[in-house]
């Protein structure tokens, strides 16, 4: 079988297209590259969606944590503490166990039957956990940035007569983002790395549709040779990391476009938040 045929058959295997059975006897380099790459689709899916949704929840949580009213502040503080203080691995497991307790037939809300059976599948359940998790980590970053917004900026906004939503949208939020961006870039990188945990606890692989590490482990177990599949997976993740650094760097330049060239903070990638 030529490599093009293998790509045609297994390229979208992780989504359920193409060959139904995983390879059983021939584990060529092409097979491994194709299947592990196919699994990467899930890592990207989880990473992109969780980051996108998590960004908005994180902004809200950061504001809530900075609020004076304890009724708003306390729940946000607890939410952030629980998700940042416990391993993602255990969060996945508990979330799965909690989700399967939902009644199968669906929940009846005001006469409408809401289907619940889909929430236990990885694409929904694990995404939900990752979303909450990244929201908690990002919220802590945004909260720190919010507290470091220079006093002068706020005074200037007051002097212009900006209040409420306008003050937030025009002054606080952009400054917060600018300050938080380097740390947020790290969060994004480590969130992508965390997506590899999805199929290791709780969530089952439906019809052997797994992520990159699921297939890497499949090959390592079948060929008894860890020296090929894991470096392939590592290679793919290095590519993702480089792409992320590039993308976030572009946004960083845009966020800081008003500053003189020399003052623009360079993105420094530090490992601050892995799970």
């Amino acid at each position, binding site marked *: 079988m030529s490599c093009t045929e293998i790509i045609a058959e297994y390229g979208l295997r992780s989504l359920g297209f193409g060959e139904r059975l995983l390879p*059983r006897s021939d584990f060529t380099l092409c097979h491994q590259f194709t299947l592990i790459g196919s699994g990467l689709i899930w890592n990207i899916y989880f990473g992109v969606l969780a980051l996108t949704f998590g960004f908005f929840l994180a902004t809200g949580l950061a504001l809530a944590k900075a609020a004076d009213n304890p009724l708003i502040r306390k729940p946000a503080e607890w939410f952030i503490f629980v998700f940042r203080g416990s391993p993602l691995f255990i969060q996945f497991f508990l979330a799965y166990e909690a989700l*399967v307790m939902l009644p199968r037939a669906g929940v009846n809300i005001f006469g409408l039957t809401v289907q619940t059976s889909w929430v*236990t599948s990885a694409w929904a359940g694990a995404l939900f956990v990752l979303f909450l998790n990244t929201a908690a980590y990002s919220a802590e970053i945004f909260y720190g940035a919010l507290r470091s917004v220079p006093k002068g900026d706020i005074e200037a906004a007051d002097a212009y007569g900006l209040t409420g939503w306008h003050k937030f949208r025009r002054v606080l939020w952009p400054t917060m983002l600018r300050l938080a961006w380097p740390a947020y870039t790290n969060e994004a990188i480590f969130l992508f790395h965390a997506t590899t945990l999805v199929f290791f606890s709780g969530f*089952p*692989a439906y*019809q052997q549709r797994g992520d990159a590490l699921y297939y890497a482990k499949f090959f*390592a*177990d079948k060929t008894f040779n860890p020296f090929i599949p894991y470096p392939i997976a590592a290679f793919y993740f290095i590519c993702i990391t480089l792409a992320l650094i590039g993308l976030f760097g572009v946004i960083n330049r845009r966020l800081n476009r008003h500053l003189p060239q020399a003052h623009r903070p360079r993105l420094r990638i530090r490992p601050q938040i892995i799970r």
Partner: protein
Amino acid sequence: MKKLILTTAALALCTGFAMADTVRMGTEGAYPPYNFINDKGEVDGFERELGDTLCEKAGLTCEWVTNEWDSIIPNLLSGNYDTIIAGMSITDERMETIAFSQNYYPPAASAYVAMKPDADLTGVVAAQVGTIQADYVAKSGATLLEFATLDDTVAAVKNGEADAVFADKDALAPFVTEGGEMGWAGADVPLGGGIGIGMRKSDTELKGKFDAVITEMKADGSLNTMIKKWFGDDAATF
């Protein structure tokens, strides 16, 4: 894959220092009544008793080690332990990578268990990853849902994630007889060529020893007695 090993506080039969002939017995420890970890934290079950008897008769010193099911063959091959005695059916596919002793348990039936007897066996079926049953389901046209342990597969049926679970009949039996809510579904499926001890292909000497002792135990009926003790009087015997 070495040292992906999950050793229990398994007791060395004799305290370990016997020279050459220490055989490390690898098992899963989560597949009652074949093998499980009892409340003292030791490996127990049909295979523990059988293994100890075999080692005693063959004059070997044996030590028990547990390992997760999905990496049990890789760890054997990298020399982490010397045998797999974990309810592993003899199949052609496995024979390509490891050697088996002759079977110590006759070809066993695999069965479906579901919440209702008329469950859709071509729907979503749960199976333990890397088992012959998982293979069978993947080929049967049903939607395979893979889990790391037997317990997870049964849990998936109870919570409705899967329509049925397909596994070794004897291992499923306690869930049916004790749970009450689940029952057998469909007909039994005979799979595999019985259960044997898995070994590295290069360990021909060890294979010879175990084969001889198993033949002896089959002949004098002591193997049948042991099977009946652990699996009940209805169990298939030699």
